[in-house]
């Protein structure tokens, strides 16, 4: 069932939160751990990247961590829903229509 399906068992805010919020926390932890071990100024030598300063590097790092973890959560949420039963019409969600 797609994330944006409003008829599902799990309310949309809950699904959005499951994807964005928890991964936001994890991205925060990852950013803290990563950048306390590695000074972005030292990374400058390894990656060719426009000069953004430390604050910029932290922000970009955080957003990348968030993007990464949120994509994995998005796919996880997508796969949590059972596949349609065999023989079901394509596009049918996991719940037979007559129980709605």
């Amino acid at each position: 069932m797609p994330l944006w399906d409003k008829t599902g068992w799990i309310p949309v805010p809950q699904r959005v939160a499951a994807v964005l919020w928890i991964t936001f926390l994890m991205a925060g932890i990852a950013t803290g751990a990563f950048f306390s071990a590695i000074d972005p100024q030292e990374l400058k030598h390894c990656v060719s990247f426009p000069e953004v300063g430390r604050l910029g590097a932290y922000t970009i790092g955080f957003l990348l961590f968030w993007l990464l973890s949120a994509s994995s959560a998005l796919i996880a949420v997508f796969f949590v829903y059972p596949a349609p039963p065999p023989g079901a019409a394509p596009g049918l969600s996991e719940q037979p229509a007559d129980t709605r």
Partner: protein
Amino acid sequence: MNRFDPAVKTSAPSPDIDATLYEKSGKIYPRQVHGLFATARVAAATVLLGIFYLLPWVQWDGRQAVLFDLPARKFYLFGLTLWPQDFLYLTFLLMLAAYALFFFTALAGRLWCGYACPQTVWTDAFLWVERKVEGTRQQQMKLDQAPMSLRKFRLKATKHAIWIAFSLFTGFMFVAYFTPARELATRLSDFALGPWETFWLFFYGFATYGNAGFMREQVCKYMCPYARFQSVMFDNDTLVISYDARRGDPRGSRRSNTDPKLRGLGDCVNCTLCVQVCPTGIDIRDGLQYECIGCAACIDVCNDVMDKMNYPRGLIRYTTQHELEGGKTHVFRPRILVYGAILIALCTLFAWRLSQRVPVGLDVLHDRNQLYREAAGKIENVYLLKVINKDDATHRYTLQVEGIDGIALAEPGIVIEAASGAVVNVPLAVRAAESALPSSSTPVRFRITAEHDPALSVSAEAKFLGPAK
């Protein structure tokens, strides 16, 4: 077996159950409440918001007292300066916070949620604005149902303008924990904020606006992991807010001068005020629910009703499962003692580590290109020393090396000078006689000591390599 057999269909939730489990939640309009716990909540919110908004302006030794200076990679906490190498202390603090949460949850339920959680505090502040602008619960509901009019537009626009201004100010103060507040204020007035500071100001401002203005109780229901797992910390002696069903049921309205016992009624007059004041929109009379954030609004409002009816207070009250069942509450039980002991141990360890903390750091890296070489008839190893001066003053450090008989620096009498906050790299060679080496790899210890402060001393271990024995 046919996968579409009727049994499968009936095992799926019926639309009715579906609707009650996951009702499309409408907007909740919590009714304003007055009373002991409401006062306590306002007091807690005032203190906490006061701390949040004022702390960045407090100075300490000529700098901001609490500043997480990310661009300079150091954290200032009053007299303490922490560096990335002090990551351990932050981990410690997080562990302390977690155990404190476990301890207080086991003891007194969701105190955190009801009184201290930023989500609750900012939601209360936003609700306060909403009430000031749009009026009481009934007026708000009426306004939302009414078609758009000039008055409705004016009220809504005013509310959102105040919310947005308040959110942006909150975002600004959030950034002020990472960039010095005074400097930030000057640059803001000059429209010279950096792009990342602007980004975080708007990001945090938007999060405040969204969470406190719109998401509200849904944050507690869907986003808060604590709300989901707090039940495992509860036991029958945990303080919870509960409706006394034995006293209240059967519920029913009655005239204030009738004796409920004659009509077979309990003390609950079924006025539903406890439902109207609930910020998460639940009925506390249905029992303990994970949505209950323990704000005690229902206690206050129910006590008012009990007073009006001349019934004793406390039909809804802070109580425990044991007490409700007619037993006694055990405060000192194994769970509390264990959590308490861990908490005290962690606090002690943290304080001890902090008191033992030396504001100088030393890392020793062995030269990677050459394991060892022969020089002046001895075995020579080359190291790179990283000296980190975590103190607020410049220091000169002397260096000793020990661990092998006769081991010495190739150039004795090295003094390393490091300014406050500086990381100084010192390449140096160390020599020892081959006959003195017990093996091909011998641990040696480098120690640096500040010239005028022998207490400012730290050591680090490295390997001294030699020919195979």
